[in-house]
């Protein structure tokens, strides 16, 4: 019996509201799953968390002595989130059926996910530094030195981070939009509601879970962002928590207490945010996929060309221009304000492909870790989401909070906790790829949970319940009903997790060994010690590697027919 036929049968038999079965009596398989998953999450998250909190509260609390940096950090987080939500939300609302080139644009607007923020920041610093930026050189040639765009500034760091973070709200919001039941919109229109009112009263409230989830994710990610503030903010005197953490950890003796104190502060902010999010969403229903069939919205969007134009502008700013800058840097002996001195060369590509000893080993390790992390975390994320949303498992709220913890702390600080814990653990994993897999799985668990929970939230429990009433076991209902319906979201989560794993650097730099080095570390090492052209060339290789794997996975998805 297929999921559709079970759903149909349940609907027609009028047994869609027998929720009591799932929520009152907890079947054994669910109970075992609940306990097992909670245990795994606790083992992954708690030891490093305890290590960090213990270290962070051991001496004077560093943020108290730097109120300016605390303010900078909060401003950076808030404004970046605002920027990313406006961009990502605008893109999600713009790219609806009927927009010219929509399918291509949907793929292009998520391209910034493939570019690491470090590369995007470097690209923009070459594009819009006040004296030598390519854009400024062109501007100065056209209108003189009166107009200068200076991206090496606090505003520059915020906008560039917003550009890099926008795909996250776009993905979550566009998935939520796709799942909207058009009958709700039609009902509003039939009753005479104007488009603006429909948007305000129907669409916005139904998008609230995805909007809040993505806003929290972006905010927390922005708080933990190091590379963009380091490249664009620090030279302008704009220091945030992560640049303080970097300086604390890289100096000798390392001021780990200061670094972890910053981590504890950010953890506290995120816990408060998560509570606020739960309070907003707690008592409301956002279900849009039920047992009743619906047909897609047939209305033509207004101003399709304008919407497409906005999306193309975003693609240009977030992907095309930084890529051009990277390609320019990778193909030039060096970048300088004097164009006459520049000469094109393949030396950087030759270096990273032939001479740089870390390239090929790192590429292989990165792909392996990316595939394993994405698979493990998307499954674990689904399990956590299901327990939190579908069961009355005691402590499910705690499980939800716990699964968010790794995100709530800057990756550099959480990685310290991982190092302190795993260097002590008497398992033969220290210095192997295994320890990196554990670190990645812990670090990206929140993304797996949030991505899958957004999908599960929109799936009415009546579908599973109906299957159970029709005689399906819990496992059978999961396999035939829940999993097929969340599969597209799972695949999107897998791709996101794979790409993020390919870019992970904070845990890797503390935990890798010569044979478990990954591409992101190789790029970071070049950034710290090498030549910008080499960084750009290796960054390209990293980008291409990610794109090839994601292309293969998406190709398989299309062949299987659930695109």
């Amino acid at each position: 019996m297929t999921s559709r036929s079970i759903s149909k049968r349940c609907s027609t038999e009028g047994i869609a509201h027998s929720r009591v079965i799932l929520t009152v009596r907890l079947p054994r398989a669910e109970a075992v799953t609940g306990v097992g998953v909670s245990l795994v999450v606790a083992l992954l998250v708690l030891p490093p968390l305890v290590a960090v909190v213990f270290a962070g509260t051991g001496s004077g609390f560093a943020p108290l002595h730097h109120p300016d940096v605390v303010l900078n950090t909060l401003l950076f987080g808030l404004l970046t989130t605002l920027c990313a939500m406006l961009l990502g939300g605008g893109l999600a609302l713009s790219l609806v059926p009927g927009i010219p080139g929509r399918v291509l644009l949907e793929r292009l607007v998520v391209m910034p996910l493939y570019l690491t923020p470090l590369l995007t920041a470097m690209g923009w610093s070459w594009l819009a530094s006040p004296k030598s930026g390519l854009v400024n050189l062109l501007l100065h040639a056209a209108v003189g030195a009166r107009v200068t765009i200076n991206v090496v500034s606090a505003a520059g760091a915020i906008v560039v981070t917003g550009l890099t973070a926008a795909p996250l709200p776009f993905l979550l919001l566009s998935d939520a939009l796709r799942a909207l039941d058009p009958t709700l919109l039609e009902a509003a229109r039939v009753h005479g509601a104007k488009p603006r009112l429909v948007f305000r009263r129907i669409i916005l409230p139904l998008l609230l879970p995805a909007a809040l989830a993505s806003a929290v994710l972006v905010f927390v990610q922005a708080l933990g962002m190091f590379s963009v503030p380091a490249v664009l903010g620090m030279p302008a005197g704009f220091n945030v928590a992560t640049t303080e953490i970097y300086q604390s950890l890289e100096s000798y003796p390392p001021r780990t207490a200061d670094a972890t104190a910053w981590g504890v502060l950010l953890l506290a902010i995120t816990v408060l945010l998560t509570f606020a999010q739960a309070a907003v969403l707690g008592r409301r229903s956002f279900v849009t996929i039920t047992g009743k069939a619906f047909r897609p919205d047939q209305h033509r969007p207004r101003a399709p060309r304008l919407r497409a134009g906005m999306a193309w502008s975003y693609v240009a700013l977030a992907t095309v221009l930084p890529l051009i800058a990277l390609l320019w840097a990778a193909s030039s002996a060096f970048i300088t304000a004097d164009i006459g001195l520049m000469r094109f060369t393949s030396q950087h590509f030759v270096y990273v492909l032939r001479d740089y000893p870390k390239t090929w080993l790192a590429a292989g390790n990165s792909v392996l870790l990316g595939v394993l992390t994405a698979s493990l975390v998307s499954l674990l994320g689904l399990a956590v989401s299901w327990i939190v949303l579908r069961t009355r498992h005691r402590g499910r709220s705690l499980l939800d909070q716990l699964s968010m913890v790794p995100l709530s702390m800057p990756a550099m600080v959480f990685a310290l906790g991982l190092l302190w814990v795993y260097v002590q653990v008497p398992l033969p994993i220290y210095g192997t790829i295994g320890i990196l897999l554990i670190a990645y799985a812990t670090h990206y668990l929140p993304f797996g949970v949030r991505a899958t929970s957004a999908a599960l939230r929109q799936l009415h429990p009546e579908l599973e319940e109906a299957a159970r009433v029709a005689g399906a076991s819990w496992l059978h209902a999961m396999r035939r009903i829940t999993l097929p319906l969340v599969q597209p979201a799972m695949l999107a989560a897998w791709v996101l997790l794979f790409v993020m794993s390919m870019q992970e650097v904070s845990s890797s730099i503390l935990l890798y060994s010569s044979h478990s080095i990954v591409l992101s570390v190789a790029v970071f090492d070049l950034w710290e010690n090498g030549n910008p052209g080499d960084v750009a060339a290796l960054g390209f290789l990293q980008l291409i590697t990610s794109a090839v794997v994601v292309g293969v996975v998406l190709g398989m998805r299309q062949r299987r027919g659930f695109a």
Partner: protein
Amino acid sequence: MIRLILSLCTLALAPMLARAADPAVIEAARQEGALAVADAAPGENFQKFMAAFKAKYPFLDIATGFYSAPTGRVLARVNAEIDARRLSFDVMLAANTAAWIEMTQQGRIARYDSAEYAAFPTGAKSDGYWAAAQAIGVIPVYNKNTLPAGLTLTSWRDLLRPELADHQLAIQNAAAGTQFNWNYLLEQTLGSDFTAKFAAQRPVVMATGAQLTDAVIRGEVLIAAALDHWRAFTPEAARAGLVAVYPAEGMPVTLVPVGLLAGAPHPNAGKLFIDFILSQEGQRLLDTELYGMYSMRPDVPPPAGQKPLAETHPLLPADAQNYVQASRDFPQHFETLFH
């Protein structure tokens, strides 16, 4: 040309000049079978150096335990392993003399009386524990294509000129050992008012030396005031127009010591490595040929195109304990000056 011929001759003779290693140590190293080095020297050049070592001792696995990262991370990793009593490294090469002094006092560095220590001057070694495998000058570097005509640099005090105020100069942040050495040694030499006046110039503070070099090449700043000297001598830097300045008052020097870690799993392999890296042959290969850095051994020539170390008036810390304390206080001191 004569210099090149001499260099080639010395290279050819170097294996004969190197002291023969103790056969008992070689045999013990053979039994150990591996060497794990934690290295803070940047880039792929160190792997070339390791390959030369491997050619001498092919029975050692030098790849499995090798770890390469900037100094801060090398120290964090090594100390975390020592704290956890799970040391996997034998030898450490890291550019922070204060850390070496402290780790030696804490018993974290093993005593090893390498015969090569005798070739190093006092101040570049801690007899029986470590010696400087590399020496990096910290100098001002400018781009001849962007520096305004008439602005000449011969002294550190030239950096205090009014025309260099407001983001025309760049330095590294407090985490960089280069920056600490620059501050400490110039304050010792020129007085603490020098760094206060320099801070009043409102320099740009950057995260890494590579970023600093890039900013000078691109003309975003006029002068990198505290740059590792070798960065100005790479072929790309020379083509881009970078010029190294050796100020008259002297050049602060950052040492990159190497030593055997206490509790090393392969101590004999570690001893062979230390003997090799500190030998004339090893120093010439590592510093003169591969990195373009200085060797503290007087019998090793400077890299091509660079002033001999003695002529740069190298500035080194005179009081080890004062240096260590200043290193601890530096983040706060830096913040007071530059934030």
